């Protein structure tokens, strides 16, 4: 079975982003970029499914600028077999990415698409669900456990208050939550091997997709600052403040 794993290049999760002073966005010049952590979990899961013998080929896909090739090389160093970059300088929103992925699903006919539940830059949490809708496929979002057989996937997913389990017919779309797995460290030999794996570059036009943004960002601003309060010397003072000043207990 073929598995498609979409990955996004985002600002590294350790970087504290700064809002640009002109309010046009956040400053990502000269900032470390990495694979979206949720997508890394998706790649790892695909590789584990391949190691179990259920999956035969893993195709990593990224949509965006030329530098996304680095993200795809990382995916191949974790264990993806080949990669496709849909290259464009246009700001891609989830609907556009979902349409590009839908075109690739039609072309590659994977049994499973597994991707992160959300990207840590725009925090949208949409692409997997949108792809499922466009391809008319079943979905299991926020996966914490994935069991794949030849004709179905059983997924435990994190929901408010606990977890639930769904069984989907294949092909299906799965989005990963944090606790699905812990991605392996990429080794140097695997990084070298990944450099030799095939990476195809195509343009959105070739897939017949209009990627123009649908939602306009008018401005980006700093969140309202919460002023630091006071340090209290002891528990008695704390209780007194909560009772008399804040009046919350």
């Amino acid at each position, binding site marked *: 079975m073929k598995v498609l794993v979409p990955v996004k290049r985002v600002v590294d999760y350790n970087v504290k982003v700064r809002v640009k002073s002109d309010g046009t966005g956040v400053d990502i010049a000269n900032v470390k970029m990495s694979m979206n952590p949720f997508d890394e979990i998706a790649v790892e899961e695909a590789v584990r499914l391949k190691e179990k013998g259920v999956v035969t080929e893993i195709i990593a896909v990224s949509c965006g600028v030329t530098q996304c090739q680095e993200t795809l090389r990382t995916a191949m160093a974790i264990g993806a077999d080949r990669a496709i970059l849909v290259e464009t300088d246009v700001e891609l929103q989830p609907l556009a990415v979902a349409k590009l992925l839908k075109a690739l699903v039609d072309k590659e006919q994977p049994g499973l698409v597994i991707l992160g539940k959300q990207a840590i830059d725009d925090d949208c949490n949409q*692409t997997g*669900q949108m792809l499922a*809708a466009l391809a008319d496929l079943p*979905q299991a979002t926020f996966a914490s456990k994935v069991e794949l057989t030849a004709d179905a996937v059983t997924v435990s997913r994190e929901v408010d208050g*606990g977890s639930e389990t769904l069984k989907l017919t294949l092909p299906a779309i799965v989005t990963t939550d944090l606790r699905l797995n812990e991605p392996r460290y990429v080794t140097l030999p695997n990084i070298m091997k990944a450099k030799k794996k095939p990476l195809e570059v195509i343009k959105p036009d070739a897939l017949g997709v209009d990627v123009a943004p649908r939602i*306009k960002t008018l401005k980006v601003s700093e*969140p309202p600052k919460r002023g*630091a309060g006071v340090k209290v010397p002891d528990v*008695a003072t704390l209780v007194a403040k909560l009772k008399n000043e804040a009046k919350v207990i």
Partner: protein
Amino acid sequence: MTTLVIAEHDNATLKGATLNTITAATQVGGDVHVLVAGSNAGAVAAAAAAVAGVAKVLHADAPALAEQLAENVAAQVLAVAAGYSHIFFPATAHGKNVAPRVAAKLDVGQLSDISKVISADTFERPIYAGNAIATVQCTQAVKVATVRTTGFDPAAATGGSAAVETIAAVADSGKSAFVGKEIAKLDRPELTAAKIIVSGGRAMGSSEKFNEVLTPLADKLGAALGASRAAVDAGYAPNDWQVGQTGKIVAPQLYVACGISGAIQHLAGMKDSKVIVAINKDEEAPIFSVADYGLVADLFVAVPELIKAL
């Protein structure tokens, strides 16, 4: 201009998140309708009809809607979507699961986690784990959005008298089946609805200590229990207790952070709380930069003292 709000419920009760979403819909202007898609969910439809500000309730009832499977609920929303200018979902696990499916089928972009309504087509939403706020404009025919519940006060659950219209339920997609669920039994308030939250971090040291020290405090305050991602990852607390950008977003009246350093990720999930108390040994901990009342102390000494003093 009419907004359709998709009700969050468990077939028996209307969940609080729906009320905050109704408030967001009211701020858009125009009428507010509520869709209840469920199974034997008549009580939910009746509860939705009683919410102040709701003009009409659409009620679709079928076994295939019992477990809120995304495929079926999205199809149900699409069946009634024509004519609505806005379709709002609570930004809960259910809402986030279904909303993008609806938007994609309508060929419109979706707005996630809106935290403020500026006008009928302009909204604010947090990005980068709440480290920046984007003002976004959506000029498409239908605005599909998920609503961050902490950004809006709940609508009054009573005072309304909307008509309930029964609508035909869609057929099961047949592509996804519900197998089972494990919902933790709650003997204390639900995290996202609690007025007071007691939360523990990595400094708790073990799940035994977590329980031993924080449970009595939560009991005393009638509080829900929460945890930082570090504490959850270390296995001190269950997954669904996690407060933070990738966990629950909460805004209680009082948030008591015990042994939580205050990673950006965690702050994004609780900084809208009315009053924040931080108890931490490390006086440099970032949690103190958002705390109204900070106590630099060993939590294993201070928390028992606090319980006694309450």
